[in-house]
């Protein structure tokens, strides 16, 4: 049995910010114990409907996907982000022009594949604005 890997917020943040798209996107993460939260501050460039205004569906999709892959990397204790096989996103509420948060739960961690569920919210954790479930291919170390 391998030694337990202590979650390290700085290492996980460095891994996330090594992804150019994550820097473009402006996403950050917070780790408390084993609970990982992705934080996306609002900016006008993230809008999909400028009238309301509402966040673009692709913004919530990317936030949920990044939440899923970083949570799998944390669960595995390895720096490699898994590859997305499929994602299914439900849009529950309009994304308002404010900060958005996301958390994911690995529902099954197999040898090759992880099943993950993730939710994004803004004002209340219990009132998600979008939800994802998906499958991710684990990359060998």
């Amino acid at each position, binding site marked *: 049995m391998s030694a337990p890997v202590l979650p390290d917020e700085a290492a996980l943040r460095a891994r996330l910010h090594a992804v150019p798209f994550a820097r473009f996107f402006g996403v950050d993460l917070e780790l408390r114990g084993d609970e990982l939260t992705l934080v996306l501050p609002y900016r006008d460039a993230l809008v999909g409907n400028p009238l309301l205004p509402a966040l673009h569906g692709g*913004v919530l999709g990317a936030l949920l996907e990044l939440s899923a892959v970083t949570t799998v990397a944390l669960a595995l204790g390895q720096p490699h982000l898994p590859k997305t096989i499929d994602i299914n996103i439900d849009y529950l509420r309009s994304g308002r022009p404010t900060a958005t948060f996301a958390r994911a739960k690995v529902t099954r961690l197999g040898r090759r594949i992880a099943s993950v569920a993730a939710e994004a919210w803004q004002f209340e954790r219990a009132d998600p604005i979008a939800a994802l479930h998906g499958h991710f291919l684990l990359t060998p170390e």
Partner: protein
Amino acid sequence: MSSPDAPPPTPPSATQIVQAMIQATPYAAALGFTLVDIAPARARMRAPYRADLVGDPDTGVIAGGVITALLDHVCGASVMNAMAQRQSIATLDLRIDYMRAAIPGRDVLAEAHCYKVTRSVAFVRAVAFEDDPEDPVANATAAFMIASDGGRRPGANRKPPR
């Protein structure tokens, strides 16, 4: 005001309208999306390859989040081009299967077909690829709500939810 003798102004083409709508959508403009082609209930768009949109720094493959946004956006454009009149739409659900990594350095195209519109919901299929839709990077199926603003006024989202 045009004079009575002047020829009537040419109405903007559907292509010009959809291209203008991309430019007016901040996130689509930020990702550099452009309209390639449209036909009734169909749209084709391009996401340019950009170093700042890479998802895997080891390989240079573009981020899945960019493909997700492209597929969502091209699906929405095909819905807009399938409705009899202009109405607000919002994505209800979006499923994406990623068959392979996009080729580093290459633009990604996506084409969508809105194959059914009802009073409340539109159904769409889309595919992302570099050269050949038969060799896809990703497939998407999506449903959109029609008249999604539900009578909400512009700026309605600036207030927190009740």
